[in-house]
Structure formats: structure tokens, C-alpha cells
């Protein structure tokens, strides 16, 4: 490895006032990592269905438990937030939405939208009898 040379540094992260876009950038990455672990739930579900009644009953017992339901609720929010926030990044990739007002609106919409959609989805789950 070459010797370290002292180069001028750009101002560090703490220099800046924390904004919503910055915070949600971190949350986007965090939800991405959470979903990475969450894919194990998806695989468990598919393998349990392919394995037989006993394995599937085990999955259903977990999904119906207190902690299971909490994890699934968190997984739902992480998925919906990462989706909406990701759409926001796709819009920015196409160079739209960079004006201050649009930028803030998109960011708020992703956050509020994710909460509203998650609750709506779970209302639907209980309405369809999945919460038994």
C-alpha cells in the first residue's frame, strides 16, 4: 500500500444541518438491509409450503404470534418505504424533481405514503381474515 498523503478533506457529515432528505437516505439504506434479512421469511414461506402441512403449520404459528406479527409489520413498512423511496430515486435519476419544493414534497410523500400504505395493507389483511 502506498504511503498515506494528507490531502484536503471535504467538510465532514456533522458539519451540515440534518435534513429530511439526508435522514431518509440513511433510512433507505437501513430498510434495504432489513429487507435483505427479511428475504429469509419469503424463502421460509415458500419452502414450508413446498415441504408439507407440518412445516407450514410451524410458519403459520410463527406468523400468528406476537413477535411474528411485529416482525411482519416491520417488514411490510420497510418494503413499502423502500419501494416509494426507491421510486423517488428513479425520478431523480431521470433528472426530474430537483427543485426545492419538488424535492421536499417527494421526500415527505415517500415517508407519509409508506406509513399510510402499510396501515392500509394491514387493515386489508385483517379484513380478509389473515389476522385470525
Amino acid at each position, binding site marked *: 500500500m502506498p504511503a498515506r498523503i494528507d490531502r484536503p478533506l471535504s467538510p465532514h457529515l456533522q458539519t451540515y444541518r440534518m435534513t429530511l432528505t439526508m435522514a431518509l437516505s440513511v433510512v433507505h439504506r437501513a430498510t434495504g438491509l432489513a429487507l435483505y434479512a427479511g428475504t429469509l421469511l419469503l*424463502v421460509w414461506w*415458500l419452502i414450508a409450503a*413446498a415441504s408439507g*402441512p407440518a412445516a407450514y403449520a410451524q410458519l403459520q404459528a410463527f406468523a400468528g404470534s406476537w413477535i411474528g406479527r411485529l416482525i411482519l409489520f416491520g417488514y411490510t413498512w420497510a418494503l413499502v418505504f423502500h419501494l416509494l423511496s426507491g421510486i423517488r430515486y428513479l425520478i431523480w435519476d431521470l433528472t426530474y424533481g430537483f427543485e426545492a419544493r419538488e424535492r421536499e414534497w417527494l421526500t415527505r410523500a415517500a415517508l407519509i405514503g409508506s406509513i399510510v400504505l402499510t396501515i392500509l395493507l394491514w387493515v386489508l389483511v385483517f379484513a380478509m381474515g389473515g389476522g385470525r
Partner: protein
Amino acid sequence: MNTETQSSMRTPMSRVRRLGTAKSGTGDFWRQRLTAVAMVLLIVPMIAIVMMLLGRNQAGAAQILGSPLIAIVTLLFVIASCWHMKIGVQVVIEDYVHTENLKLALIMANTFFSIAVALAAIYAIFKLSSGV
């Protein structure tokens, strides 16, 4: 500046000229967006599939998951999500892990995990589809 450059009569430009690039520098960037858009399209049918399975026993779930259209949509979603998460977590590793060997080990582990998750899910879907 390292010693090799100092002892050589060749200029830095002559050393890189004609080598060109691998023309694949934006490969992961593009595939991350390709899989993101795929999942934006697939998420609504995927949510519908999960909703259809709520409250059903293994036999009912297996029958639904094994039907052709649902199996294909699930396969597409699994492939897109595993590819997307492999790229995403690799970016996180490259951002935060600067010890070369540890970084290589983590990138390998990430690739193994993503391929294993994808293959396990694909295997389960094929098994459900073949009805054995």
C-alpha cells in the same frame, strides 16, 4: 507517487494509453435500476398473491403457489429481488469496509447468500409447480 513511477522513463499517460476501459463500469448501476423497475411492476401482483394465501392451510397455499401464472410472477419477483439485494449490499460493503481481505470475504459471503436465497426459493416454486 510510488517508486515504480519514479524509476521509469515512461509517462503516466503512456502507461495507460490504449488499455481502454472494460466498458462495464456502469453494469451494476444499470442492473440495480433494471431490477428496481421490475419490482415496481411486480409488487402489486405479489401483494395480491400474499393476500390470496392468508388464512389458508398448506394444501390450499401449495395449490395456489403452484399454478402457472402465480409461480411465474413469484419467480420473476424472487430473481429481481435477489439480484437487487446482492448489488445493494455489495455497495454498502464497498462503502464501509476498507480492509481489503475482509471486504473480499464479505462480498463473497453476500454473493453466496443471495444466490442461496434465490436458488432455495426457485427450487421451492418448481417443487410446488410439479406437484410432488
